[in-house]
């Protein structure tokens, strides 16, 4: 493919710098400044960064031209801050690069980030160390921008570590609670396990590609002849799988997904920004960024697809049995991330990034809505003690509903388009090592996931907003709609979640509607085109595409219907107000009856499966064995080994002798 023109663009530096400046300012002075100023600085920095990003992307868009293969190309903007270090052949530039892919990312990061900053002003009101919160938040955005803008993988790794640190600090934000502090620690350490794999991959790239700059790596990969590819096959697969291990840590996939549910210990805006919209998608971004590398290793691609599919399904089953409003969303995030990895695994990097974007919209919306609910219910998170909130907080309710429809893939809502794309490519791809059978398997898995997603999301919705309020008197008397600072972002996000999907109309629909273009795909083509061109897809014509879409829609609506069946029954009978006792009784019996029915049918299987996954995989295997187990083992070993040091010099001397003896045996044997 032809090489891409690159233009110097100094503004990029400022986009990344502004949040950092905000963080430094608040970090040093924040404690002594009035709250208003702190929040203004923090949110202001984000706002300006967002505007600058729009300018930058617009500039990129202006630079478009007709590519050799008839597609529109946009080139890239770069800004070389400085040369970080240069060792022999390896030269690491601290260089920021803006191409269509990173453009999408920075728009999401700064845009959604800005909204969430505004939201936080309302949500964090009255928190003791408010300045600390905004410092961390700004620092996180800076690190995230480093991650997506860095042209060199070492810079990317810097951001990769930075977001880890920021998320650690923010999860443990309310560190007075030991459980929350340790949740932060868990997240950080699990992520480090993934990071070491990434480091190894970088080393291997240094050896075999001789560079870590994405641009140069791309050239290197494009110049590889098939013979070389087969020769390097093992190494390439190793690199890709190592990178993917890093992604499973950062993006919470099997087996390292365990930290994300615990991460809900952090403030809700944090969960929205870091653990739904941006940081956790870093893995998907990395793979899309290096698609030219991954397509060279079908093994890795297959692995990614399978892991993604499994994660999506199992996380969904776990989500079904959660009762904490944030836990449900957490598991649904894991599940949706699984979807994205499924997408990139089957070679449709576009679908992955597209779903990344729509997910950023509706999941941020859902988290913020949940936050608004928690705010209104005075930090009640158990959905069994909610219900009927639609009367108390209408805005939250409607926006939340939009979010639910979007994630459930209800037609013409954003989630519908992206999810359909993923399902279609899963079905149509032919390059997975498992062959067509694997494709079908993954397709059904994804279909089931779509169904479950719709089900538990609307279970959540009905239990929270519909029906009678099950909160106690005291709480109920205080329930209120959230302030404007919180509802405004909700509305904006609701609009995005509602209509955001139309930028990526799938060909099948576009064709039917008279050649509507898939804007998103054309925009991203420059980055992911070559990768996608690598694969062929079966099914000429649109027949199967319609089938897939119909199936997806059906499963989504089916899930909604089932949830309504179980939880949406109109339990708010008019007479309820009259005789409360009877009403309460009826409600109770209703619930009881529903649960009976639920348990008697599909519910039991799903519940069981969910429970098993949760207990077995999550708690036992990961929590106990991998994380705590390892930590304990290390601590235990340490405390055993230190006993050897009994303080007697002569034992030290003895050890020296022992060492010398062993070495001499090694040497002179």
């Amino acid at each position, binding site marked *: 493919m032809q090489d891409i023109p690159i233009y110097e663009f100094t503004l990029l530096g400022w986009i990344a710098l502004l949040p950092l400046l905000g963080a430094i300012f608040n970090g*040093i002075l924040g404690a002594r400044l009035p709250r208003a100023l702190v929040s203004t600085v923090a949110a202001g920095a984000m706002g300006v960064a967002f505007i600058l990003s729009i300018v930058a992307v617009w500039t990129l868009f202006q630079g478009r031209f007709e590519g050799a293969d008839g597609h529109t190309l946009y080139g890239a903007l770069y800004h070389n801050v*400085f*040369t*970080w*270090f*240069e*060792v022999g052949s*390896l030269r690491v530039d601290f260089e920021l690069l803006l191409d269509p892919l990173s453009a999408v990312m920075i728009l999401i990061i700064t845009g959604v980030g800005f909204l969430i900053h505004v939201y936080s002003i309302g949500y964090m009101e009255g928190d003791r160390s408010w300045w600390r919160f905004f410092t961390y938040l700004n620092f996180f955005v800076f690190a995230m921008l480093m991650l997506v803008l860095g042209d060199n993988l*070492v810079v990317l*790794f*810097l951001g990769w*570590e*930075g977001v880890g*640190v920021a998320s650690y600090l923010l999860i*443990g934000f309310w*560190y*007075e609670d030991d459980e929350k*502090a340790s949740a932060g*620690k868990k997240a*950080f*350490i699990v992520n*480090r*396990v993934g*990071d*070491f794999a990434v*480091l*190894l991959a970088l*080393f*291997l790239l*240094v*050896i075999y590609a001789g560079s870590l700059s994405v641009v140069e790596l791309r050239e290197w990969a494009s110049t590889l002849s098939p013979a070389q590819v087969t020769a390097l096959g093992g190494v390439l697969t190793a690199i890709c799988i190592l990178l993917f291990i890093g992604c499973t840590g950062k993006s919470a996939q099997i087996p390292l997904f365990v930290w994300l549910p615990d991460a809900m210990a952090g403030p809700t805006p944090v969960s929205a920004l870091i653990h739904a919209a941006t940081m956790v998608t870093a893995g998907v971004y990395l793979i899309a960024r290096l698609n030219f590398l991954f397509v060279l290793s079908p093994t890795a691609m297959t692995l990614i697809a399978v892991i993604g599919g499994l994660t999506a399904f199992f996380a969904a089953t776990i989500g079904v049995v959660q009762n904490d409003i944030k836990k449900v969303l957490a598991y649904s995030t894991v599940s949706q991330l699984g979807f994205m990895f499924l997408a990139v695994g089957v070679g449709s990097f576009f679908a992955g990034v597209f779903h990344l974007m729509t997910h950023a919209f509706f999941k941020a919306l859902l988290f913020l809505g949940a936050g608004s609910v928690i705010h209104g219910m005075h930090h009640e998170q158990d959905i069994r003690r909610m219900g009927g909130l639609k009367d108390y907080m209408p805005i939250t309710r409607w926006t939340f509903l939009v979010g639910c429809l979007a994630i459930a893939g209800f037609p013409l809502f954003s989630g519908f388009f992206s999810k359909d794309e993923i399902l279609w490519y899963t079905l149509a791809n032919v390059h997975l090592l498992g062959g067509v059978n694997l494709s079908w398997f993954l397709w059904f898995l994804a279909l089931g996931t779509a169904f479950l997603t719709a089900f538990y999301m609307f279970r959540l919705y009905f239990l929270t907003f519909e029906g009678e309020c099950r909160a106690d008197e005291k709480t109920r008397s205080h329930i209120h709609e959230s302030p404007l600072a919180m509802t405004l972002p909700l509305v904006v996000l609701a609009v995005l979640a509602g209509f955001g999907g139309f930028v990526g109309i799938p060909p099948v629909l576009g064709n039917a509607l008279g050649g509507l273009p898939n804007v998103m795909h054309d925009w991203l083509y420059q980055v992911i085109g070559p990768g996608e061109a690598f694969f062929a897809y079966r099914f000429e014509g649109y027949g199967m595409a319609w089938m897939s879409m119909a199936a997806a829609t059906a499963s989504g609506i089916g899930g909604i219907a089932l949830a309504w069946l179980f939880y949406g029954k109109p339990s708010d009978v008019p007479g309820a107000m009259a005789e409360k006792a009877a009403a309460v009784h009826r409600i109770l019996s209703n619930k009881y009856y529903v649960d009976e029915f639920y348990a008697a049918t599909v519910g039991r299987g799903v519940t069981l499966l969910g429970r098993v996954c949760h207990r077995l995989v999550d708690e036992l295997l990961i929590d106990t064995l991998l994380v705590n187990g390892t*930590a304990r083992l*290390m*601590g235990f*070993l*340490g*405390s055993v*080994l*230190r006993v*050897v*040091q009994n*303080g007697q*010099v002569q*034992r*030290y*001397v003895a*050890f*020296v002798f*022992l*060492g*010398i003896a062993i*070495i*001499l045996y*090694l*040497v*002179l044997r």
Partner: protein
Amino acid sequence: MSSLITPIDIASTLPFIVLCLFGMVVLLLEVFQRQGQSRSYLAYVSAVGFATAAFSAWLLMGVEGQLVFHDMNYIDGFSKVTALLMCTAGAVTCLIAPRYLAELNADRGEFYALILFSAGGMIMMVSAADFIVFFMALELMSIAVYALAAYVRSSRVAAEAGFKYFLMGAFASAIMLYGIALVYGATGTTNLAAIGQLLSYGAASGSVDPALLLSKVSEQGALAGAAGYDTTTGDLLMLNYGSGTANMPLLYLGITLVIVSAVFKVGAVPFHMWLPDAYSGAPSPVGAFMASAVKAAAFASLLRLLALAFFDYELRMGPMGWVQVTFFLALLSMAIGNLVAIAQTSVKRMLAYSSIAHTGYMLVAITAMGYGVGDLDLGASVVFYLFAYVFGTVGAFGILAYLTRSRYYVERFSDLNGLGYRYPALGVAMTLFMLSSAGIPPTAGFIAKFQVFKAAVIAYGAGVEAGEPGALLLLALVVSGILFSVVGVYYYLKVIVHLYMRDPVREVTASDSGPARVGISVCAIATLVIGLFPGPLLNLSEQAMSQMEGRHDGVYVQYEDGAPIEDLQRLMREGSR
């Protein structure tokens, strides 16, 4: 007369001379000042001394590498760069010391004199070209540090630490001496480069005509000492070069003993047991000095020894080579250091064990350097690591010293609780040092670890190409290294957690001492700046390695026909396969 001391001799040892002069001046100032007056100004005097020494070392940068003092000493890039390192460490130590000493009413001038003398010893040691000078300098360094360890007379712990450190140190130097004696016996010279040449001749001659070889040997002026032996006395299987070094048990015993005692000084497992006691028992500034300057000097001299004397292929990779030794030592050090550090409750002891772990990482690079065809330039990563490590360590110990008040030592983790908010700058600095030690970007430690592991991976690649045995083991070493550094994050994080996420258990008020603040901030800034702009320092450490005089891999011996020593080594390698 030929043996006169030339100006270049004096000039090239200027840093050493400056330090010793300042040391003596400080001593005299101390004794001629009335009792009871504050001695803290001596800190500035000795800081100036270090600055002067560093400056003179920097002035010498122009001088091209050469042998001085009758082949006793090198003036080369390596010695200069390491001298800069020692001077920095010493200066910062002197800055963090005075208030601490005053708090423990141990405010006496000997402290600074001893620091100066010991730093002089280090500089001499890393520039030594001969075992005699090497040994003298080593002792000059060690003896001064023994005294420093027990410096605070009122402290039982310090007395015990000093005694243990001394006993183990003396033991180690006896072992090293015995090793040197055996090597001297095998080669007939104590000149490092000459030993290197002779040993590779000896190894090489397995496939080359001994007679020819002997004529070559006796040609070497530096090797006049070796010309005296006769091949007929076969009563010891040491000097018959005709059959290679492979059958020189005493020689190998000697080499092993020398390397072991050098490794002892850097505190690698299982020769590490003195280290935690010494570091944690000694007063914090001394701990800083021992953990930074002394360890750096030990590593630098280890590099020098291996590169000059023991870098022959047979000695490295042969069935009795030292690479396998460093391999196991590195693995053990990383494992034990990191694991035991987790179980510590005292920050000082945690730092001590973590420095053992750092030793392990650096030994990984040394193993890589010696592996396969052997690439001495990979040693640059060690030099760079030393810089990063020194700043982090001195800074951390310095903060402990900064927080220590009379009759209240800050040593346990719980003592740091909540200090991050109480002293923001201090908290940030400590966080930086911990992140750097954990190897998290954008601090110096990350680049350092990156360099070290990269060196190992490169050596692995080269080894695979050359078809060396067990290249995969090297990769395994890297993997385990990175894994253990992941483990390490745990206890470094613990410090940050205590700084920011625990509520204070008791009132800790820092002794706000100006010089200490300066020293700590220098370290903090250096840690960050090196992390962000490592370029210059990387080049400097590359220089240090590439400009090391008498490196064994260089072409320093020519035959009449001009064939370099490499031919011999290659022949010998093929012979040994």
